[in-house]
């Protein structure tokens, strides 16, 4: 698919996987007739019918709760949460059941449930449309989490999520839904979970980012006088420790960029990993550039909250001059 947006790549992945496996079904609010508020499921109702592309009642816990039963009946449900902030009601099902049920059967039954949701800010939306709640999901045992930053990875990670025997949360940065564009592989395309990507090679400092923050880290790398490597985490759980540690072993310095609030965010997990396994490689402190510990602000102030390239450059200069 030449010149494809991220949301078009998501749509293509759904179509390809639904054609490949008749047990894959898409369910959520407005996913059928409307094709999703971001058009991620456009055309699926016409192609696969109302049994496999289901407009559900407006009930996120009900969507994920019935998906558990659908999985027990042999389906592979792909649930859309319309916005990340609307996913909070489904955390009850996620924590109490989705992440535990495989364990509850002593490993006998699989729960191949995919939960898709847009994530993050930068799109000037009303309150509770711009959160970055990945840590809630990552922290839940039994759940895998991936966040793409390119159209090709969005397609490939979604395919991997749908094919996974485990429940996977795929968070799609909505700031990237319509730009940039790139050529996306046609047909079946799978990017395995648990593999990070070097988004830019460099020697002096490693910027570790995911989702919408990969572009911020890359812009910072362009602005920085020293040579910065950018690692796109892609898969938060399972985490590709090897790629992260190899990059930090090379550069000796790490700046973690995370849009979510700071305290106990996923960046803290990466910082702890580096403290445990890279201490002898580090030439300075691991620095986090994050959102603040506040509710995501009204959009007139969102650029003050979301990490900027300038803040990343400042952090890099701090660690480079340590």
């Amino acid at each position: 698919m030449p010149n494809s947006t991220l949301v078009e790549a998501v749509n293509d992945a759904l179509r390809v996987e639904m054609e490949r496996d008749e047990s894959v079904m898409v369910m959520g609010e407005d996913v059928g007739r409307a094709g999703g508020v971001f058009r991620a499921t456009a055309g699926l109702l016409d192609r696969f019918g109302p049994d496999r592309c289901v407009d559900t009642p407006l009930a996120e816990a009900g969507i994920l709760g019935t998906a558990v039963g659908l999985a027990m009946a042999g389906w592979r449900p792909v649930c859309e949460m319309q916005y990340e902030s609307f996913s909070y009601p489904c955390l009850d099902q996620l924590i109490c059941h989705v992440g535990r049920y495989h364990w509850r059967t002593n490993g006998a039954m699989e729960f191949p449930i995919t939960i898709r949701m847009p994530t993050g800010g930068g799109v000037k939306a009303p309150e509770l449309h711009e959160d970055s709640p990945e840590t809630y999901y990552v922290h839940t045992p039994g759940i895998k989490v991936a966040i793409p930053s390119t159209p090709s990875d969005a397609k490939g990670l979604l395919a991997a999520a749908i094919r996974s025997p485990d429940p996977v949360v795929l968070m799609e940065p909505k700031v990237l839904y319509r730009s940039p564009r790139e050529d996306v592989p046609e047909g079946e395309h799978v990017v395995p979970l648990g593999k990070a990507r070097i988004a830019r090679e460099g020697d002096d400092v490693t910027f570790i980012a995911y989702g919408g923050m990969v572009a911020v880290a890359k812009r910072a790398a362009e602005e920085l006088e020293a040579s910065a490597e950018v690692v796109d985490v892609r898969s938060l759980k399972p985490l590709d420790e090897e790629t992260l540690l190899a990059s930090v072993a090379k550069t000796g310095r790490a700046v973690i960029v995370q849009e979510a609030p700071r305290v106990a965010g996923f960046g803290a997990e990466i910082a702890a990993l580096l403290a445990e396994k890279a201490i002898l490689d580090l030439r300075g402190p691991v620095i986090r550039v994050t959102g603040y510990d506040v509710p995501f602000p009204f959009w007139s102030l969102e650029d003050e909250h979301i990490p900027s390239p300038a803040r990343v450059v400042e952090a890099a200069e701090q660690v480079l001059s340590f």
Partner: protein
Amino acid sequence: MAQVVPAEGDMRRVIGDGEAQPDGEVEGLADQDLLELYRAMVLLRTYDERSVVFHRQGRIGTYAIFWGHEAMQAGSFHALAREDWIFPSYRESAIGLLRGMPPETVFSWWRGHPAGWWDPREYGVASIAVPIATHVPHAVGFAWGKKLRGESACAIAYFGDGATSEGAFHEGANFAAVMRAPAILFCNNNGWAISTPLSAQTRAATLADKAAGYGMPGVRVDGGDVLAVYEATREAVARARAGDGPTFIEAVTYRCAPHATADDPSAYIDPKRVEAERANECVGRYERYLRRLGLLGDDLLETIAAEAKETIRAGIAAAEALPAPDPSLVTRDAYAE
């Protein structure tokens, strides 16, 4: 659509009181079925009473008592086919016994041993749900999923009166109705959620009234009358298989036992009421019914009781004979890959 909104106090009954109220009968139930129902109730009763003793002896952990729920469990179970799936709450922890699950499996669950989990496909019994009402959407999703596959299986979810206050109940019930899922939402209304009486859960005249709001039939039945429960569930199953969607059943009883072994209801329940309710408990009521019919005498009663006791005795012995779980199990089975 059939719409039933029963009035308060208007509960379906089949079993009489041996005096003013005559015994009824359920069409299609042979003598063998009637005795099978009795055996199931006695097995559940024996399991429950022995479990309280085993808890006191330190042989199982904290245990959720279901004394007085046997008619609701055995009666509804008897209306199901083997293909139908059961979604129990912890109050129905032993319902798998009726599907051939070994008692040691259930005892292991209460002993906190990994052998207490099972493969739900083996018995058509989902895992015991500890959180309140969150398994209702699972049953609904399963039923809906089977319908989408063109299969005839339905699903039954068991939950208590307190569960109807939870959002998960609402979302599950609404999904069931919207998707016309072949599901039975079975509410065992025993009047109490630990110490909270039904009057503090709802201002609705009856819980069955709630069904009307979802556009599904609501049925109110005497939860101490195993035959009435069976008949109501059989109708709900028939409706589900005919493609007419879900049914809400409110089975009314009174909690005559503590919520669990860790609970002391003397702090909040009038013991006189409990005493009166216990005198009319469901196993004895059914036993007297069968005696009036001439189907049950002392000899058969003793045989059935002895069989149940032996099953439970062997079950706890088998559970206690299991080796301690391997420590490596702690990190196993969280993920399939």
